[in-house]
């Protein structure tokens, strides 16, 4: 279906329509998710049968034992035998549910002996993935444009379920996720994998999956995590192991190169125009969710940058907040999220946009010296 979407836009509409009325849980793409689906269907069928039994008895009674049909009330109002029967029989039915559920749960919770381990860290409102066996880590943020959300642009098929950098995992291998959070509680959920696991700040949970089919699997944060809880999607691309290995070594090389590049950039100076245009992009991607595109923030929730004393006067404090965040608030530390030249650009942008006309131009080397405590 994914290929159909990409190759034949004419059919995109139709396949969309089919998904519109999805009534049931997905069967997913792992053995566990299939087990979860089967357990769900078992429960569903038992519940429908019990419900139907009760309702049929009730409606028979409502039809035949009506006063308007001349029904005379019977006199019985107690029966120990019947009471025992409808206590014991449901109890036995429960055992038939509990045993398979217990076995499935024990399988699901066994995250031992993984082939790949990935540290998943939630923060407002993005995911960070760190491959524990390779030197690869990056943030994954929603890629849907603000104009689609506000209705200025038409919404595409993966509206709200697309990210800039998806998580990549190998198929057929046991992938263990170590899940935690930098701020509030989030929950990492891809329905096709059959589980969700909360990301608790200060604690690490684990979960695992073994995806059978290569493909693109989409999910969302499932625990209310603040303003943009609805805009925190997860995209996982499952690749054949050979392709995955190729991808991960490429990424490793790219990230090493980027670190070298950052050192090289320290020696270079940006012009004001370069810094402002780079800064605006970074601001809109990272800062605008709270401080708003116009820099005015949300009064009482997120402070304004426009006209703020820190943004127009105290430059060292400004850089310090960007690097280290503000303890006890939603302001994150960006030292690890952005490169030094990106931080320099965004500081420059914030000090010159929206009428904050300080004229300050901050360079990567200024950030470097702030990091090194000068």
């Amino acid at each position, binding site marked *: 279906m994914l290929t159909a979407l990409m190759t034949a836009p004419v059919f995109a509409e139709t396949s969309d329509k089919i998904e519109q009325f999805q009534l049931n849980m997905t069967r997913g793409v792992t053995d566990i998710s299939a087990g979860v689906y089967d357990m769900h269907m078992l429960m569903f069928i038992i519940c429908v049968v019990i419900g139907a039994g009760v*309702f049929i008895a009730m409606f028979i009674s*409502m039809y035949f*034992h009506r006063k308007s049909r001349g029904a005379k*009330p019977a006199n019985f109002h107690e029966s120990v035998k019947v009471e025992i029967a409808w206590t014991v029989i*449901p109890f036995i039915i429960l055992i038939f549910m509990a045993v398979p*559920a217990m076995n499935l749960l024990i399988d699901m919770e066994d995250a031992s002996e993984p082939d790949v381990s990935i540290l998943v860290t939630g923060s407002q409102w993005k995911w960070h993935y760190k491959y524990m066996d390779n030197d690869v880590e990056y943030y994954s943020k929603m890629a849907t444009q603000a104009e689609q959300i506000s209705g200025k642009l038409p919404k595409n098929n993966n509206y709200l379920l697309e990210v800039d950098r998806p998580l990549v995992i190998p198929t057929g291998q046991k992938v263990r996720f170590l899940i935690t959070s930098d701020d509030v509680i989030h929950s990492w959920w891809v329905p096709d994998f059959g*589980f969700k696991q909360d990301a608790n700040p200060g604690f690490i949970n*684990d979960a695992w999956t073994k995806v059978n089919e290569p493909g693109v699997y989409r999910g969302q944060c499932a625990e209310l995590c603040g303003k943009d*809880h609805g805009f925190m999607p997860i995209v996982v691309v499952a690749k054949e192991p050979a392709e995955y290995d190729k991808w991960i070594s490429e990424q490793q090389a790219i990230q090493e190169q980027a670190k070298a590049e950052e050192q090289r950039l320290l020696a270079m100076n940006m012009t004001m125009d370069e810094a402002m245009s780079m800064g605006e992009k970074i601001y809109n991607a990272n800062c605008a969710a709270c401080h708003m595109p116009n820099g005015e923030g949300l009064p009482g929730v997120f402070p304004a940058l426009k006209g703020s004393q820190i943004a127009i006067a105290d430059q060292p404090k400004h850089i310090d907040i960007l690097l280290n965040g503000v303890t*006890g608030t939603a302001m994150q530390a960006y030292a690890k999220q952005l490169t030094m030249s990106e931080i320099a650009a965004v500081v420059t942008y914030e000090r010159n946009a929206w009428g904050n006309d300080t004229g300050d131009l901050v360079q990567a080397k200024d950030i470097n010296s702030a990091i090194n405590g000068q």
Partner: protein
Amino acid sequence: MTTATDSTHIDDHHDDDHHEHHIPPGIKRWLYTTNHKDIGTLYLWFAFIMFLTGGAMAMVIRAELFQPGLQIVDPNFFNQMTTVHGLIMVFGAVMPAFTGLANWLVPMMIGAPDMALPRMNNWSFWILPFAFAILLASLFMEGGGPAFGWTFYAPLSTTYSNDGTALFVFAVHIMGASSIMGAINVIVTIFNMRAPGMTWMKMPLFVWTWLITAFLLIAVMPVLAGAVTMVLTDKFFGTSFFDAAGGGDPVMFQHIFWFFGHPEVYIMILPAFGIISAIVPTFARKRLFGYASMVYATASIALLSFIVWAHHMFTTGMPVAAELFFMFATMLISVPTGVKVFNWVATMWRGSMTFEVPMLFAIAFIVLFTIGGLSGLMLAIVPVDFQYHDTYFVVAHFHYVLVTGAIFSIMAAVYYWLPKWTGKMFHIGLAKWHFWCSLVSVNVLFFPMHFVGLAGMPRRIPDYALQFADFNKWISIGGFAFGLSQLIFLALLIKACKKQGEPVSDQVWEGAEGLEWEIPSPAPYHSFETPPVVK
């Protein structure tokens, strides 16, 4: 129960006007009242106003979710709406409505003249409007009201919330104090003021279920007070109960909250069981099947409610052994709950049924509450709960048990006892319109939520992926229709309060049995001046 203060007034008034003459005129009657019926009326009207207020917030939520994209409100305000909608419906609508019913009915049902502690009764009501004024006022403060969900999980409600959290905490404290006082009053009344011959196992089930509910309230409202206080000190006074950086644990918040929260769920449904157990036998013209087993089932549900709290937290990363324990304990609850449903059906079986409005609501309750109960059983199964958790499937589940469960039972109760309260039959035409419009719209509203939840739509999101669009449109249409249907109820209640309608007999309903049906309609200001003897 005539108190010493009465005697000073008696000499300058006629004896036959004994009950009326010490009712002060105008607003003072309601401010100073210590009468269980007046206070019951206050509670019920307050609950209804809160129901409409919380409902208006639900309309905002459904209007925003009518189509994908952000159209009407921003996400921060959307979160305030979901939060305050939940708080108002739980603490402002359902709980005060049940307390109002208890005030009206418990003394009449056990043959008492009034509640045991009438001044505390007055106080427990009159602090409520202040609590909700504080909560609603916070919406208009800088930064807005609480936006962290009615469950206020830390650290979203501590480090990451705005300063209005203090108002939320204070409001919840007042609501809790009110509930505890209401509960003490119910317990003391039932223990001390039953008429001669009204032994424990002769008490109507509404009295039994409320007695058990009152004990649950006293047990868990202090736990809620503890939780909000810890949130307050974590946020403003530098403690670290829920902050790992200071040695705390955010998951501990959830344990404390749900230790309150799960019994709270039964606080909102046990009195409903009592109401349905009163209505079904009346209109089936047959005694309630298995009275004793109903009492024991209620008590078992209440006891089990203390050992199942963590089934709200299966995805927090509990040890497998804990997950299994809470799964098995939760599944057990379906046994006594099932007993209740079977008993109601057995009561109808071979009865002589008629379908007056209270019975229509009672039957809708049994069917729709059972649907909500069965989806609850599905949610108890840990491995599948990993998929259901925090999706619209959960939203569908708890609205089936709370709206078509608790609220339908409250409506059934109002229709059932309203003629006794006013002495006049309510407008039956309006009542039937109210029932059928509510029944259809509530299912259009909540049933498709099962589907979008299973298809993967998380709860508490202001915008959603395109695959959920069509169902959400239907859900919103159902929501608006359900909201409008309640205006029919409002019109009916205003007519009833103006004492319009046909006068009714003392018994009101042909099959009704119990002490409240033996006193005149409308019920006298003090139901029983001398205690009746129950045989």
